[in-house]
């Protein structure tokens, strides 16, 4: 019995010793195993990534269908100048988020809370975009130094386009831009917004070359200034489209090949119209699908094809002008 006890104790003691040894081994071995497993897993991931970089996977034979963000629906007659046309009610709007402008200084870092709603229709000859966005104030004047207009723009370029084409195209991807200006529309609707609109009590005693035109101390209307005297209006004299008092349409058709390159196209055949109601602007911008200025790079639009498009909004009350704007990302546009 005694022997048996001793033996048992010995066995138990040995077992306890083995257990102690095993615990010691565990403390070293298990972290090593776990670490090795983690290392292997990470190495496998990195290996795959490196492999993808060195030899990227080849595209499948049949490219994936591009995702259509916007569709230009076929209609009998595109409502090119009517933002309230019932045709628009038949098209469900696409909500396009507006971003900050954080690429080209000066930046605009404030982002609108609400997206712009976009509808697109075409009739085979004209393509029309309806942009709708909330704006608390109507800013339709740019006469005083601190007055800035509300405005919006549609940019169309080829598909696929590089990501940087979002900022008014690139050197190899020219962008056609339709730019609607609220003050231009009022110039058409109510007549050129002259000096007197911002400064009602303005008086004049003499403008060289225009002595006879000053009646009762009031300056002559700008639209009435004869050609020879327009030399005193340098921008107008130089043919700057911004400076012309007589306007036919509130939409300017522009070509651009990147920031700071926008150029008014020779053929100004884009049309459009805007209406502000209950805190919302609804603006139609339209162009002919067949390009008038192909030599200058204007985009030609064809049915059944995909294009790249982007949108931008300027809020006059926030001092938006030029680069101070809220642009969207680049989207795809399919023409039905």
């Amino acid at each position, binding site marked *: 019995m005694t022997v048996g006890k001793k033996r048992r104790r010995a066995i138990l003691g040995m077992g306890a010793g083995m257990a102690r040894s095993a615990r010691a081994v565990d403390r070293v071995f298990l972290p090593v195993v776990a670490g090795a497993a983690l290392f292997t897993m990470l190495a496998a991931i990195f290996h795959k990534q490196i492999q993808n970089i060195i030899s990227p996977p080849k595209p499948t034979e049949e490219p994936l269908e591009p995702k259509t963000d916007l569709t230009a629906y076929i209609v009998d007659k595109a409502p090119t100048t009517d933002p309230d046309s019932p045709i628009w009610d038949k098209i469900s709007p696409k909500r396009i988020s507006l971003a900050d402008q954080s690429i080209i200084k*000066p930046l605009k870092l404030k982002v609108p809370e609400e997206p712009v709603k976009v509808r697109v229709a075409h009739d085979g000859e004209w393509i029309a975009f309806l942009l709708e966005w909330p704006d608390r104030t109507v800013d339709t004047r740019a006469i005083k130094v601190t007055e800035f207009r509300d405005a919006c723009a549609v940019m169309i370029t080829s598909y696929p386009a590089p990501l940087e084409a979002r900022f008014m195209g690139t050197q190899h991807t020219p962008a056609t831009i339709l730019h609607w200006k609220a003050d231009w529309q009022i110039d058409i609707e109510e007549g050129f917004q002259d000096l007197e609109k911002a*400064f009602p009590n303005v008086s004049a005693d003499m403008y060289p070359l225009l002595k006879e035109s000053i009646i009762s101390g009031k300056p002559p209307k*700008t639209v009435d200034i004869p050609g020879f005297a327009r030399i005193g*209006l340098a*921008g107008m004299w130089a043919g700057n489209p911004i400076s012309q008092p007589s306007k036919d349409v509130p939409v300017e058709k522009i070509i651009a090949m990147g920031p700071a390159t926008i150029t008014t196209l020779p053929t100004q055949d884009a049309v459009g119209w805007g209406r502000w109601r209950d805190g919302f602007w609804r603006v139609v911008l339209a162009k002919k699908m067949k390009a008038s200025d192909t030599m200058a790079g204007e985009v030609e639009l064809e049915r059944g094809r995909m294009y790249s498009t982007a949108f931008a909004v300027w809020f006059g009350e926030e001092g938006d002008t030029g680069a101070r704007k809220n642009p969207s990302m680049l989207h795809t546009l399919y023409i039905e």
Partner: protein
Amino acid sequence: MVKVYNWQIGREMDYWYEESRPRRQAAAVFDTNKCIACQTCTVACKTTWTSGKGQEYMYWNNVETKPWGSYPMGWDVNILKMLGPQRWAFEGDRYVYKGKTIFEAASPSERVLGYLPNDLDYAYPNRGEDETNDILVEDKFYLRIPHDLWFFYLPRICNHCTYPACLASCPRLSIYKRKEDGIVLVDQARCRGYRECVQACPYKKVFYNHVTRISEKCVLCYPAVEKGIWPRCMRTCIGKIRMFGYLNTPENADPENPLDFLVHVKKVGLPILPQLGLEPNIYYIPPIHVGNMNFLKMLFGPGVDQAIQTYNKAIAGRDIELVAALLLNVSTDRIMTKFKVIGSSEVAGYDENGHEVVRIPLKEPAVVRPFYDERLQVYRHNIT
């Protein structure tokens, strides 16, 4: 931003574009001690360039009374307040500006530190005219030098800066500096009226046309300058305060060039608000009777003391060459690139072809007529 060297602040600074100096830089020196605020320059410019509709409020050339006058209102104090501390230190052989320029102080979202004046700021071009620095009280009317009570006139045009803020701010690239003469222009066909330049120019010398809805600025009468003739505001100056020509950089200064002589050799011509960092090219001889030197140093930089000493020496007759150079002010409408004192009684100016375009006496001859004219049998009074 890239690093460029601005000799007026004695150091490199950040600028939007790389250093690209013109082949020669049109520049001018205005002697504030001689300006009488007659506004002839203002009117000459107004009738030549800004008499069109939409330009009614514009003065490409204006004359304001310092310290209180300003057009547009508060243009100088506003930008200086925005800029923060402006400290200079003398290092080696020059003053170095230790504060920030308007390019360095711009917020991360802007190209240039600036602000847009409103239409009321432009409504009082003569505000502060002839107002002294302090309230007039009887016991202050004694003649003391420098004056306890003072003011001076400051004629201002576009500075056609070496590092123009208007040019840097334009995202449209509508503003350019001509390589041939350094004149800064707004392309009237290209500008789209963003007004970034109006906001950026700290001197507020770019204007928005109410009718054409684009920006305009002083053109330094480039059609005349191209023909070797002074700009209108300069050549009509009846106070003869102005010297127009071409200015070299300090290391290339030519002592025979009247502009280089006044700015680099004698250092009496000082830039206006050099701490802003634009390297402006209209220079000012500071007023010698202003009591507040800190005000002058704020306006013209740390070289004011030396400029005033040098100028005083000249008017005391102890620097004939400087007197000669100053006498050439508005003595001709031809651009001079050289001048020379002839003997000790005359000074001559030469155009870029070496032709003498003007010669004037250092001292106007005085003729004293007899009180009784025998020939005409009349009594005469010398009235001048």
